[in-house]
């Protein structure tokens, strides 16, 4: 039984968050709740989220989840942002129960980004 609070995947994502940072001239959504702050940035072309970036202030699980989301969602239809569920990330990253609320902040941020993308498309 491991006493390490972080899985190998969380450690790897936290150590090298390749999607960390902001994107200039991109669509953006920011959410702050439960002591966590997350900003998401997206460039969308022809309905596809071509580039995703994040900024986060939170525990390692939050940073790892944000990185995993960005890495996993790039290239997918931006419309899917509105239906994003963080439950898969919670499982794959073995997020402890007491921290799952923080990962739901990421879910809120992704859906908020989806709304921003949809709003921009309407124009």
């Amino acid at each position: 039984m491991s006493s390490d609070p972080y899985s190998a995947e969380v450690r790897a994502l936290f150590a090298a968050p390749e999607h960390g940072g902001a994107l200039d001239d991109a669509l953006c959504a920011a959410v702050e709740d439960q002591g966590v702050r997350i900003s998401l940035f997206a460039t969308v072309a022809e309905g596809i989220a071509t580039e995703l970036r994040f900024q986060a202030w939170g525990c390692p699980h939050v940073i790892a989840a944000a990185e995993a989301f960005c890495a996993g969602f790039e290239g997918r239809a931006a419309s899917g942002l509105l239906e994003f569920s963080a439950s898969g990330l919670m499982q794959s990253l073995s997020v402890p129960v007491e921290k799952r609320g923080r990962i739901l902040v990421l879910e809120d941020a992704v859906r908020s980004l989806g709304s921003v993308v949809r709003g921009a498309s309407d124009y």
Partner: protein
Amino acid sequence: MTDRGQMIYLDYAASTPVDPWVVEAMTALMTADGNYSNPSSTHAAGRRSVEYIAHAAGQLASLLNTTEDTLVWTSGATESDNLAILGAAHYRRERGQHLITMRTEHKAVTDPFSELEKQGFEVTWLDPDASGLLDIEALRAAMREDTQLVSIMHVNNETGIIQDIQAIGALCRENDTLFHVDAAQSCGKLPIDLAALPVDLMSVTAHKMYGPKGIGALYIADRKGVHVEPLLFGGGQQRKLRPGTLPAQQIVGLGATAAIAQSRINDDFAHLTALRDRMWAGIRDIPGVMVNGDIANSFPGILNVSIEDIEGESLLLALEPLCVATGSACNSKSQEPSYVLRALGLSDALAQSAIRFSFGRLTRAADVDTAIDLYRNGVDRLRRLAPGHAA
């Protein structure tokens, strides 16, 4: 398992490696060709164990400048604190039921006081000033005729702040109040002269000063009115104050630990001062970084720093392979900010960002330099990752 080849241990306030000489002394009392007998046995081997224990008592007594018969062996500082606080309060409960301690004490002290509150005792919980120091005048104001016990630690385990136990003890003597000191962080590291200090009860432990875990002692002054009621019963050992078969090898370990500490206390202090000053000099220019406590009045083995707008848990992971603490190691699995730092007036966010670096005999300047680099890089990386940082 941790890769010890890479880790840099800066958590000496939590525990220390056992000195090889101590291991050697202990091993001689554990193996078949050694002296493993029960010191309660009356045969020759048992009597030999008694001699070893007496020698160890002399070593610890010498370190503290007291006599052997003032020392009671325990399993460590937590048990010593419990025996002192619960035992003294119960012994003197007919005289009064008012007790005084500080909010910044270790849980091994605050929890027994909370237990006494449940039993009907009244406890005054004193707040420290912003540096963690006790205001002597606040203590004087809190003293009452029925105050039976004051418990204030010598060196705080989170901040390293050193309390003026001479002045506190003098005030207690004026009021005929017993004074207990948790010296888990100071024994063997700062000079302690119990022949001169107005201290009635003092808790010490081996594993904070390069000795084994599982052994400590409680000093009980040989003075009228100073006594504790036992917590354990059975066997009658140690004048019935703490019965049970004496762990001779552990006691010998504590004795050897004390002797080594006494021989190098000044060298250790100078070494720790140089390391602490080097660490602070290496990070003090980072925007938003601050010392928790007061370096000028702290034990140099501990440097506790907070930093603005950094999430503490992420900083701790970013510092790996450093082994450091976010607060008291006993409390580090909790998500709650340190109650000690909150009592100093820190916000939850600042308390949560706190890192305690604690140095020891085996810490090298190169280790500190690595810690400085990791701290600077970790802070920089997390700040660049935080919302609001420019693209």
